[in-house]
Each structure stands twice: as C-alpha cells, then as structure tokens.
C-alpha cells in the first residue's frame, strides 16, 4: 500500500506532523453543497412561485422578485464551490504519541485536542459518497459533554483504521 501513497500521506499515522486530508475532500464537500443547495433551491423556488401566484403585483415586480431569489441561490452555489477550497487549506490533523489534534474553520477557527487516554470509543464511518471517493471518517468519542464527539473526515480509506488502531493501542491483527 505504501508504494502508491500520495506524497502528502503520512508513512506512520503518529509522526507528529500536521497533515492535510485527502484533496478529494474538496470535491466531496462541493458535491454535498451542490445537493443541499439544489434541494433548498427547489423548495425556495416552489415557495416563491406560490407566493407570486397569490400576491397581486405587476408582472415586472414579480419578475424582479424572481430574479432576486434566483440570484440568491446562484450566490449560494458559488459560495458552495469556493468555501471547500478555503476550508481545505485550513483543515489539518495531527496525531502524535499521545494526542489527536484537529484544526478547522475559515472565519470561525477551532483547534480541538483529544488526549488518547480520554477516548472512550471510536467509529470509522463511510457514507455512499465517501465510498465513491475512497475516503472515510474517523469519529472519536470522549466522556466530555460539549466536545464529546470529534470527527476527522476526508481521510484516505486505508488511513482511518490505522489511526484508530493507533489511538486505541490495537495491534493491526486485532482490528481485522
């Protein structure tokens, strides 16, 4: 597996370096935003059409209103395409001997630190879209309250279980 790993993928999951996630994460995010915005847009459009059918405005006013709504959703689409790139640049994870660190956020930034000894259990999850792009997510659960769940998504499929094994001090054969 190590032979075809891309250069940004760590050789060991616990090398104390800060790593970006798989660049596929950007595409994944964009797809997600696209789907969300489309659903929202369809609902918004239906609502707008019903609303325009009910009010007694002139057709010019109606057209302007419709254009405004369409413009709003276009802006949402564009934002949904741009923000994943910015978010990707700010998204880093680090796993050293004792802690997992996750850094994210464009404007509102948050760095989360989870000591290995506080981890109660972990999940490795993979949704249908993630499966398509060969990425998976590592979800770490602690006994905390507001930050009880810390997620690292966009990890290459092979890496998430490796990280989990390291966090839980499992030997590779135990996890298979």
């Amino acid at each position: 597996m190590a032979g075809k790993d891309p250069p940004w993928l760590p050789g060991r999951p616990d090398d104390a370096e800060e790593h970006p996630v798989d660049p596929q994460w950007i595409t994944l995010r964009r797809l997600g935003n696209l789907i969300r915005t489309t659903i929202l847009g369809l609902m918004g459009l239906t609502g707008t059409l019903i609303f325009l059918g009910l009010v007694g405005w002139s057709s010019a006013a109606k057209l302007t209103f419709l254009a405004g709504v369409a413009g709003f959703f276009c802006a949402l689409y564009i934002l949904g395409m741009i923000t994943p790139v910015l978010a990707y640049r700010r998204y880093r994870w680090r796993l050293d001997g004792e802690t997992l660190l996750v850094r994210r956020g464009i404007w509102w930034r948050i760095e989360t630190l989870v000591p290995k000894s506080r981890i109660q259990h972990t999940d490795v999850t993979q949704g249908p879209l993630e499966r398509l792009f060969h990425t998976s997510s590592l979800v770490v659960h602690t006994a905390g309250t507001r930050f009880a769940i810390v997620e690292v998504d966009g990890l290459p499929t092979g890496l998430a279980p490796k990280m989990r094994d390291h966090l839980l001090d499992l030997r590779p054969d135990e996890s298979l």
Partner: protein
Amino acid sequence: MNPSEQSIANGEWRRLHPLNLLLDLFGALRSLVIPILVGAISLPGRALMVILPVLGALSVTAIVIRYWKRQYKLSEKDLVVREGLLARKVRNVPYWKIQNIDTVRNPLHRLFGVVGVRLESASGSEPEAVLEALSVEAVEELEAAIRERGGEAPAEARVGAGTAGEGNGAAEEAPARLLYRIRGRELVRLGLAWNRGLVIVGALVAYLFSYGRVEERLPMIERWLRATLDRVTPFAGDVPAWLPVVAGVVLALALLVGLSILYVFFRYHGFTLEGTDDRLRTVQGLFTRATATIPRRRVQRVMVTQNLILRWLGGVSVRVETAGHSEHAGGWQSERYLAPYLPQERLDAFMTEVLPDWAWSGLEWRPVSTRAKRRLLRIRLSAVLVVIGVAGWLTTPWALALLPLLVGWVVAYVKGYVTYAGFALGPDTVAYRSGWLKREQSLVAFSRVQVVALEESPFDRRWKMANVNVDTAGASMAAHWMRLRHLERSDAEEVWRTLDSRVRDTDFKW
C-alpha cells in the same frame, strides 16, 4: 468472560420491601386521577360501575406482578436486578462501576422504616438501578457490598496509576470526619439569596394549568379580590389609589421570600458533609431525608457560585459535578452541593480539606485581555444604539428615554465582568471565573480534562484574543461553562500548551 456466571449460583434472590406495592399504587392513582375524572363526567353511571373496578383490578394485578418478579441479588462482583414476567430483563451492575449511591427517605419511607436507593454509574443520564424501597438492613448490606467489593477495578479495566487515592480493597471503612454542617441562620440566608419562591409559584401555576380550567376561574378570583377591596375601603377612608397596589406588590414579594426560605429550610435542613479517605457523603432534608455518596476520585469539577445577595451576605455555594450526574425530579437530588452556604472566608480551608489534591488556595488569578473592556463596550453599546434607534423610529421617540438606563446597565456589566473574569493555572488544575451579578468559579484537575478546544472568531483575531474551552465529563449545560473567553492571545496559547502537555501526562480513570 461473564462476571456473573459463577456467582449467580451462590447469591440469593430477594424482593424489595412490600412498601413498594403501596408506592406503586400511589403512582398508579396519580396517573389515573385525570382519566377517572374525565370518565366520571362523560360516561353514564352504569358503564362507570363496570370500567372502574376492571381498571382498578388490572392495575393492582400489574403492580403485584411487578413487585413479585422484581428481584435483586448481591453477587460476588456485581449487583444483579431481574424483572418482568413476559419480557424479562436481567441487569448486572459491577460494584466498582457504581459512581454514586443516593438514598432518600420521605415521610412514608420513614413510617415503614425503609429507604429508597438509587445507584449511578458513569453511563450518564439514566440511573443504573433504582430500588424504591429497601429495608434499612438491606441498604446497609448493599452499601457494604459496594464498599468492600467495589473498591478496586478489575486489573484489565484500570489504566495505569491514577492520581486520586483508591484501593482500600475489603478493608473496614475509616471513620468519617465531619467537614461541614449548615447552621439555622445560614438556611435563612440561603433562602433569601436563592429566591426559590418564584420557582415554587411557577411550578404551582403550571400544575394548576395542567389540570385545566384555571382561565375560567380567573373572573371568580377577580370578583373575590374586588369584594375584599370593597370591604377594606370603608375603613381605609380616602387612601390614594396607588396604596393598595404597592401594598399588594410588597405582600407578594414578602410571600415569595417566605416561600423560598421555607423551601430551602425543608430541603437543606441539617445539611452535613462528611468525608473519609476516599469518599464524601452528604445528608440533608427535614421531612424527606436524602443522602448522597460521592467517591472523591469521581469528582469531575468543582463550582463555586455567589449571586448578588450571597455576595452581600458574604457567603458562597460549593457544588461538584460527577460523571454520573443526571437531572432528576421526584425527590431525588439533582444538584450535588458540598456546601450550600459557606462563609466566604472559610472557602480556602474548606477546599483544602475536602479535595486536598486540587490545590485551590494557591491559585493565582490572571485577568482577561486588557482590550476586552473596549471591545465589549463597543459592541454592546452599538447594539443598544441600534435597538433603541429602531424602536424610537418605529414606535415613539420617547423610547430614547430608555437610552441612559441601558447605557448605564451595559457600562456597569462590562466593568463588572472585566474586573472579575479571569483564569488560573495551578500545579495540577485549571480554573476559570466569570460573571457580573452572579459570580461563578470552576476548578478542574488536569486529570479530569477530556477535550481542549481553542476557538477564534474573526473578531477575536482582530482584537488579538482567543477562547479556550475546557470540556469535562458530566458538565451540566445549565451550569457555568468552562469557556475561557476574551483571553489575550498569548495567554490562550499558554493555557493551551499547558493543558496539552499536562493532560496527556495524566490518566483519566472512572
């Protein structure tokens, strides 16, 4: 390995005290009162004569069966509870996992010489086992079993060496030392400060409304008030019209304060805190006696609160959070006070005695950023201006008269907040304090910190500030939030680095 496999053979199954039957019956009656009343009004008498006995017989049968099939056993390593006739359930609770042992004795319990017991493990919101009524001897046996067999976690469940003292194995429990006892005068002060009167009135109103038809009775109440007023007026001569109103308000306030004092008096009467080497125990209540046992190593966070009235009176309240903490109604304690009212000057000595490892007294408090005042004033005052401006424009220019009041309020708040807010890094602990009228302090040992998160908004960056979240197990959403806000960026980084290096050094142990 099934821990109960072998021990199931040697324990013996027991039932709870028969008082459970009565308690369950009361419970059933309470939940059936409304349906019966509704039925009595809407159904013809003859149908009622059939339905009521059938309903009664059914619930009595269910209660008897429930009592009959509900049994528990003290086995070698765990408490086993089994219940159910058709759908059966067996629950094993290992002794060492039990976080808190709470008992409650209301007047009914006392009349029959029994005790209600609730056992909590770390699993969170739901108590591990509730045994509504046990004889006093049975409870003593249960407590002894938990004490003697639960002191040590099995080797595979222990993670390295812990920080707190533990491991008294099967030894006799050391004699408990009295650490705190509330005095009568302090109960009255507490009643004044906590102002629980409104809570009682609110609950009463909610209760009345849930039983419906209060709206219909409101005119009746009004008539009664008017009649009383008419009867009083001749004696009063020509008093100004505002006098009865003022008198009414004063009377209502006095009533609220009186209710609050009564509530606190009944609930916290005779509150004592005792400590042995490894556990704390509280006893409280006049009619309903409740006890709670908290192993010292289960303490996740200590909170010291002081509202405005407590500050005037010179007292503080000290609470702890344990991981198994849960909010419950129905006579069980939802709050774990170590000392509901403690004279402020005794706080340092108290904390040193109660949690010696947590080093409260040596804390050096450091302030939030020096720019916090300017930042908060700017944002809050702009908000006030916008709100008042819009209100004045939409309604009447007289809204502007509120401006000085609101500005004064904001300035007072910001000044008060900034002077008090601060953080401290002790040798083994991190502490945070905040609040204006109600001051709150939280103390957490590094070994209890679960997750640390450094947060920065664009505004924080502009003002070179940052926030550090310190997350613990069982932190109540309603209580003081350990979010160290408006810290100087360099201070935030220092806290972050300290926590990073120290938290990883310590092991967290249930």
